[in-house]
Structure formats: structure tokens, C-alpha cells
């Protein structure tokens, strides 16, 4: 087991419960390094979101701990950025003010926050949308705005709960490539939940396959860990490495 010092985020043997009695997970451990994308794959209801909640500090585990650059942050929210399936943009704020929200909440003035956010609009492909309302943007654009807000939380660890599942297939593919490129460029450590096997194989440097059925009394555990050999190619989905990763995930899920 790593000490957590060389990793951005480490979860050590997390045992989680919804009600303090029924176990959702048992001894789930994972690590993610800076610049790395880690995917958690598992069947519906296996407790993926519960694990992410624990990593975000929104729930306290029954046992185990969460370390951020070696520092214990178990049960304390506000240290890692979290983005859910829904973009959760506040409808009454403009895209600029939505993006600035983490900074304003942290105590920065609106002007200072806007000055920080303004140069990012081009980088995130959102030029010209600063004064738009969320309802005026397409699904993909809204998701980009949500990513920008997540980035402006200022944390180098980002948790993503099925971030692309609400998008159409074409936009999903574009957003996936864009996010991987962007997160590696920005040096983010990302933990992504997905139930899409292809998505996990395309995005991840490492995949944690979760097995278990908490509702049937079988707590979820890490079934297998798959390290994906990434190559800088135009289309990773036609490489042998992609197919190997995909086969390994499916084997892990059906084990």
C-alpha cells in the first residue's frame, strides 16, 4: 500500500454504509496520480457514487481514510473538486458567474473572480458565452461550463460522476477526448465513474473494476485493477491496447 505521498489522492480500505448497518463497500482502496485519469467501472447500484461521495468528503466511511497528497481529508468536503452527471449550473447565474461561483464562495470578490475566469473561456471553448444564461447553451457547452467551474475550484483532484452520460453520442465522444487532453495538460488527477466499458478503456490510465451487489447483501470490493498502456494515436479505439483493456474490464465485471 502506498503512503499517499507520491499520489495525488489515495483511498485506503474504505468501508462504507448507507445507513450505518448495511455495508455498501468493503475495504475499497484506490490511488490516482497527478495527470492521471482513473476510471471506476461497476454495475448499477454497486456503490460507485457512494465511493465518490466519500472521496469528496460528503460522507464519512465506517473505516478507512482518504489522503490528499498525504494529508488526511476523510469526511471533510472542500478539498477536491466534484462534478456530477448533471451539469448543475445555477439557472439564475450567467455562465461567467456560474464559473466564478467556487471563487466567490471561497471569499474572492466578484470582480477578482471574473478576472481569473475570463481568460479560460477561450481555452474551454466557451468564448462569447460569458453573459449567456445556462438555458441558452447546448448540452455540450453546458458541460464545458461545468468543467470550467470544476477547474476553478482550484483543486488538482477532480471527481467526475458519469460526466458525459447525459450527452448525445457524438458530443460525448468529443467531450471525452477534449477532457482527457485538457486534464493531462492542466495536470489534474481525475477519478471518473462510468458504466460504459468503452468510455473507461478510452479515457483511463488505470481502471478499477468494482464487483458486488450491496442490495443483495454482498458489499462491493475492487475486483481487478487494469493499467492501460496508452499510445499517442489519432484513434485509440482501434488499437490492440484498447481491445485488451476492454476485454479485461468485461472479464472483471463478469468474474
Amino acid at each position, binding site marked *: 500500500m502506498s503512503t499517499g505521498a507520491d499520489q495525488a489522492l489515495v483511498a485506503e480500505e474504505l468501508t462504507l454504509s448507507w445507513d450505518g448497518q448495511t455495508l455498501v463497500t468493503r475495504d475499497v482502496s484506490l490511488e490516482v496520480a497527478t495527470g492521471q485519469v482513473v476510471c471506476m467501472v461497476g454495475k448499477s447500484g454497486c456503490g460507485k457514487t457512494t465511493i465518490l*461521495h466519500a472521496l*469528496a*468528503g*460528503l460522507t464519512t466511511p465506517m473505516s478507512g481514510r482518504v489522503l490528499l497528497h498525504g494529508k488526511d481529508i476523510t469526511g471533510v*468536503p*472542500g478539498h*477536491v*473538486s*466534484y462534478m*456530477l452527471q*448533471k451539469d*448543475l449550473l*445555477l*439557472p*439564475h*447565474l450567467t455562465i461567467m458567474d456560474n464559473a466564478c*461561483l*467556487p471563487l466567490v*464562495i*471561497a471569499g474572492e470578490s466578484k470582480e477578482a473572480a471574473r478576472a481569473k475566469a475570463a481568460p479560460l473561456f477561450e481555452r474551454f471553448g466557451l468564448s462569447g458565452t460569458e453573459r*449567456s*444564461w*445556462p*438555458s*441558452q447553451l447546448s448540452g455540450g457547452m453546458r458541460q464545458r461550463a461545468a468543467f470550467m467551474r470544476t477547474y476553478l*475550484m482550484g483543486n488538482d483532484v477532480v471527481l467526475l460522476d458519469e460526466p458525459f452520460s447525459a450527452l448525445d453520442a457524438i458530443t460525448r465522444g468529443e467531450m471525452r477526448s477534449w477532457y482527457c487532453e485538457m486534464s493531462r495538460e492542466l495536470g489534474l488527477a481525475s477519478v471518473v465513474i462510468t458504466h460504459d466499458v468503452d468510455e473507461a478503456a478510452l479515457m483511463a490510465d488505470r481502471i478499477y473494476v468494482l464487483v458486488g451487489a450491496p442490495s443483495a447483501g454482498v458489499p462491493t470490493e475492487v475486483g481487478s485493477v487494469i493499467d492501460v498502456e496508452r499510445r499517442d494515436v489519432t484513434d485509440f479505439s482501434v488499437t490492440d491496447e484498447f481491445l485488451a483493456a476492454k476485454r479485461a474490464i468485461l472479464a472483471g465485471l463478469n468474474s
Partner: protein
Amino acid sequence: MKALESEHIGSSHKRQPTRLRRIVVPVVALAALLAVWELACDTGLVPAFMLPSPLAVVRSLFADLGLIAQHSITTLEEAALGLGIGVVVGFVFALLMDRFETFYLAFEPLMTVSQTIPTIAIAPLLVLWFGYGLAPKVILIVLTTFFPVTVSLVSGFRSVDTDMIDLLRTMGASRWQIFRYVKLPAAAEQLFSGLRISATYAIVGAVIAEWLGGTSGLGVYMTRVRKSFSYDKMFASILVISALSLALMRLVDLLEHVTMPWKRAEGSKNHD
């Protein structure tokens, strides 16, 4: 062919009436109703002492316009004061009910029961306790207006997406910041719906309270003209009460329009 027909029927059902049609249709319906009413009175089908004709009502309104305006100002002042206090009380109650579950459990049934008591039944008691001055009128209006505001706000607070709250918690937001950025804006739309109802209750509440005593107000005016069997003036005051209620509702609409610019953007997108 059948599929095409059903598709055509389906699409025609969804078609929204044009703006012009939305105005013309009710105006024509109202004009027809007034015409029938006028005809019934003019031909003697309905005796004038039982139901004055629309023209007689309008003539009375203009004849007594100065006096009605004075009484209307009193009623409006009482309604505005009562509504203002009612909104503040409703807001405080909603905040407490949202913040403290015990407070919600304790007061939610009591508040619901309180709304089953007819206004007309408690008005005489309020006059007995507080006299013929401003106090009983304002209290009655507060009692009738705070409920829609409280209910709409509590419902708005409770309808907030919990994921939104979790998201703000991951940003390190305080309880106040979650209220300021998530709960209050989410409840705003429902608040305005409640406020629209409260605005109409405020005028009606003021008139009912004035019926039971006082020196000025549309309720006092109505009592006086009723005693002199001037039913045309009675109808004129009903017309004014309706107009005032509608004006207050429009004011709430305007307030909503100004304070919620993002709703306009949503509306125009839906229209597209």
C-alpha cells in the same frame, strides 16, 4: 395514412394560440356577456333594483369617482401594509420550517387548519379585540396573506436538487451561501406564485375587515351604498375591487419579470 392523420391531429393539439387570439377571444366573450346583461336589464327582464345594467354601473362609477378613489386609497394602504407584513411573516415562518424539522412538524398542520377558518368568521372577533382602527384590518390581511407565501416558499426550498447542495458543499459553501445561491433562487418562482394569490387575498381581506367597521375604505363605501339600496354603486365598487386586485397581480408579475431575467431567456428558448 392513418398514422399521418394522427400525427397531424397530434401536432394541431400542441399548437399554441397566437397572442392576438389570446386577447381577442376573452374580450369578445366578455363583450357578449355584457351585451346580454344590458339587454336583459333594458328589456325589463331583470328589474333594475335587483340587478343594475352595466351602463348604469359605469355611470355610477364616474359619478362617484372622486369618493371611490378616496376609499380605494384607504383600502390599498391597508392591503399594502398587511401584504408587506404578511410576506415578512411568511418568509420568517418558511425559513424556520426549512431550517428546523421540529418547527415544520409542529406548525405545518396548525397552519393548514388555520386556513380552513373562514375570514368572515374571524373578522368580527378581531374588531372586538382591536377596535375599529387599522390594527384589526391589517391583522386580518396578514392572517390571509402569509399562508400562500409560507407554503410556496417551503415547497420551493424543499424542491431543491440535493445534488446541487452537495456540489456547493464540495466547494466549501456555508449554510448561508447554500441558501443564498441555491435555495432562495430555486424558491423564487414558487414565491411569486404564492405572492400573486396573496395580493388578491390582501384586497379582499381589507374589504371584508372594512365591512365590519371603520370610517374609510371600499368596504365602508359598500356598506353605505347598500344601506341606501344603490346597487349600481355597489357594483361599481366591486368593479374597482377587481381592478385593484388585477393591478396588484400585474405588479407581482412585473416584479417577477424584473427580478428573474433568466426566466425570460428560458421562455424565449421554449418559444423557439
